[in-house]
């Protein structure tokens, strides 16, 4: 990203900036990779390039709290390139990548290498999450401070178990020393041992080993109690149940700064969607009941849930075309995050600016980064999309190497036309000009 930045003007789009609440048709001026002005051209502005955004929405680039990129580990398949291409095709300009890679992200050198390789591609910005424990084994802490200096924005166990409560306690104490944020998936893995589906009527009918809601709530209660003691900053990843969300609300009412996110899959789907053992619905955490899904949709509105993430996980055919319980959990979602968020907003009559906040300004705020905004002087990370364009999800056409999604065949509205990262066009929809 060292070449000269062109000066670009994005004309006549509906400029929506959740950070400021701005929502009006305007021109956006970009110079030196930054937002130079909205409305009137700044003094001395010379236009190199014009994007006609008539009828389109001009929004901050999406900030995704969790997307797996397959690196380290997938270099031979060029996963980083395909997944970051998928990211910008989906309007995502900044993403956090979890540490459950091969090897795990627990050494500063690995973190620097990943950042360097991502930078070279010039697609979306990659913010690595460091492994909370060495090799994610749940026993020894990693070098939080050094990993932070190498570029880790927070620390996480990803989906790996952390069984020893003392290790969790010490991790929180130590992280609090440096005011480092921990990202925790609330799961008591023993309560959900061998489980593959939500413990409810569907799992009972289908004979699928259950993961009970208490596996989530017991874990949240432990985390909340340890937060009170240590003062650690904790963000809960992928809350999946009504009861879990109620506990987050309760913790906040005690004054704890507990934040949380959900995956876009859980905003739309429930265990009944498993149908006859559809392994595309094999996700972690499991899809819970319709009542839980309704609670998630509601909690997005009342602010209990701070952000929606893609939880993008590319899974190959060999790992997915298996009996439900043997299939690898996860779904490809980077290219679906925006339209599925718009879909939720449509159904719940949520104003566009509020819906976009859940995938731009709010996750950026959680990360404490200057992204997810169109403020003057901010990096020109921009997503330009047609909110009305309808398209059908065709797995083979996804840019991600993961071709498995629960939304295959579904018609969605909202298509990204341009994605700008750092003031450069990183994605342009074929045909958009």
């Amino acid at each position, binding site marked *: 990203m060292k070449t000269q930045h062109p000066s670009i003007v994005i004309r006549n789009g509906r400029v929506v900036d959740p950070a400021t609440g701005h929502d009006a048709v305007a021109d956006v001026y970009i110079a030196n990779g930054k937002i130079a002005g909205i409305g009137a051209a700044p003094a001395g502005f010379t236009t190199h390039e014009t994007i006609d955004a008539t009828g389109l929405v001009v929004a901050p680039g999406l900030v995704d709290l969790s997307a797996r990129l397959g690196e380290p580990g997938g270099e031979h398949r060029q996963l980083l390139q395909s997944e970051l291409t998928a990211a910008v095709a989906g309007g995502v300009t900044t993403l956090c990548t979890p540490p459950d890679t091969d090897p795990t992200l627990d050494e500063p050198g690995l973190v620097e290498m990943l950042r360097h390789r991502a930078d070279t591609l010039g697609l979306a910005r990659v913010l690595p999450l460091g492994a909370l424990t060495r090799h994610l084994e749940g026993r020894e802490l990693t070098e939080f401070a050094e990993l932070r200096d190498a570029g880790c924005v927070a620390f996480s166990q990803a989906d790996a178990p952390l069984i020893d409560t003392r290790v969790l306690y010490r991790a929180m104490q130590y992280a609090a020393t440096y005011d480092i944020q921990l990202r925790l998936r609330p799961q008591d893995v023993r309560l959900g041992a061998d489980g593959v589906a939500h*413990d*409810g*009527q569907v*799992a*009972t*009918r*289908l*004979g*699928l*080993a*259950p993961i*009970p809601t208490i596996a989530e709530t017991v874990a949240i209660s432990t985390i909340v109690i340890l937060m009170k003691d240590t003062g650690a900053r904790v963000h809960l990843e992928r809350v999946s149940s009504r009861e879990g969300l109620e506990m987050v609300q309760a913790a906040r009412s005690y004054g704890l700064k507990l934040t949380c996110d959900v995956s876009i899959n859980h905003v739309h789907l429930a265990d009944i969607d498993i*149908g*006859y*053992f559809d*392994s595309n619905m094999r996700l972690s955490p499991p899809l819970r009941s319709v009542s839980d899904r309704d609670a998630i949709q509601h909690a997005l509105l009342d602010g209990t849930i701070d952000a929606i993430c893609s939880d993008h996980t590319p899974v190959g055919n*060999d790992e997915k*075309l*298996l*009996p*439900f*319980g*043997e299939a690898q959990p996860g779904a490809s979602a980077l290219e679906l995050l925006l339209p599925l968020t718009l879909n939720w907003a449509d159904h719940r009559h949520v104003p566009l600016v509020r819906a976009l906040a859940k995938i731009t300004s709010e996750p950026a705020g959680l990360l404490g980064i200057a992204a997810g905004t169109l403020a003057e002087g901010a990096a020109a990370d921009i997503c330009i999309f047609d909110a009305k364009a309808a398209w059908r999800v065709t797995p083979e056409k996804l840019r991600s190497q993961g071709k498995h999604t629960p939304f295959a065949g579904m018609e969605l509205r909202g298509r990204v036309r341009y994605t700008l990262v750092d003031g450069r066009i990183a994605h342009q929809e074929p045909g958009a000009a």
Partner: protein
Amino acid sequence: MYNPQLNSHGELAHLLTIEGLPARILRQILDRAADYVAAGEQGTKKHGDLAGKSVFNLFFENSTRTRTTFEIAQKRLSADVFSLNISASSTAKGESLLDTIHNLEAMGADMFVVRHSESGAPFLIARHVRPGVAVVNAGDGRHAHPTQALLDMYTIRHYKGDFQNLTVAIVGDILHSRVARSQIHALTTLGCPEVRVIAPKTLLPRDVEQLGVRVFHDLDEGLRGVDVVVALRLQNERMNGALLPSANEFNKYYGLNEARLAHAKPDAIVMHPGPMNRGVEIDSPVADGKQAVILNQVTFGIAVRMAVTSILSGARA
């Protein structure tokens, strides 16, 4: 609702689960089985229904009785029968489940009979086989064992005539039982007004009552006035996951003995899908007593599996 077991004419294309099958199809199978029983009594054991067809029995999980009765049924229908014992570990190392299926299809398979330790595995296979190839679920994980449930229905109908006025109790490890799930669906579909499950809370799946059953935790109370008692096998490994303290305690509170059975109707029949753990879920005096119809279940099982095999091969013509 889409049903992967029925073709566009509403006929049986695969037998994967009892759930969602209309009563007419269950009755069709039972009636066809009765024809084979009657023919057998008149001396006709062998039929030509599947002459020239190749049936592959794929047992990814061990079985003796189910596999043997399927083989007998297929041979009595003149099918070419190939049985493969494929342990789950060997597939985990090498060939995937679907690769195995596609290879056997290339060898000309017309029907697969599948047992697998993972719930839903036969559905995956049915979704990927060529049109015209039938899949029979011979037991998948905790999910379903439809031919077992059908032979149980045959047995009940044989002894009790009809389902309309019956009370049936299923006792034991409901949580892990594919047999219980399929029996419950079969009984409720065929109009049985009261199905009971009797077990400690650790051996019942969540929301089991939504399958249409009454839940009892007390054996004597649950057996009171019932026409049919089904005892389920309790596997020894259930003691490991803190589900039960001991086989002895289970036997004392949930084991079927003569004194317990006295709470049922005097003409109640006792069934068991086998293999039995004598002295655990059932005591020998009951297992060998005059109310037991356990060996008759096995005999009827051949006719029922003949019926399923024959209907599946014909429904596609």
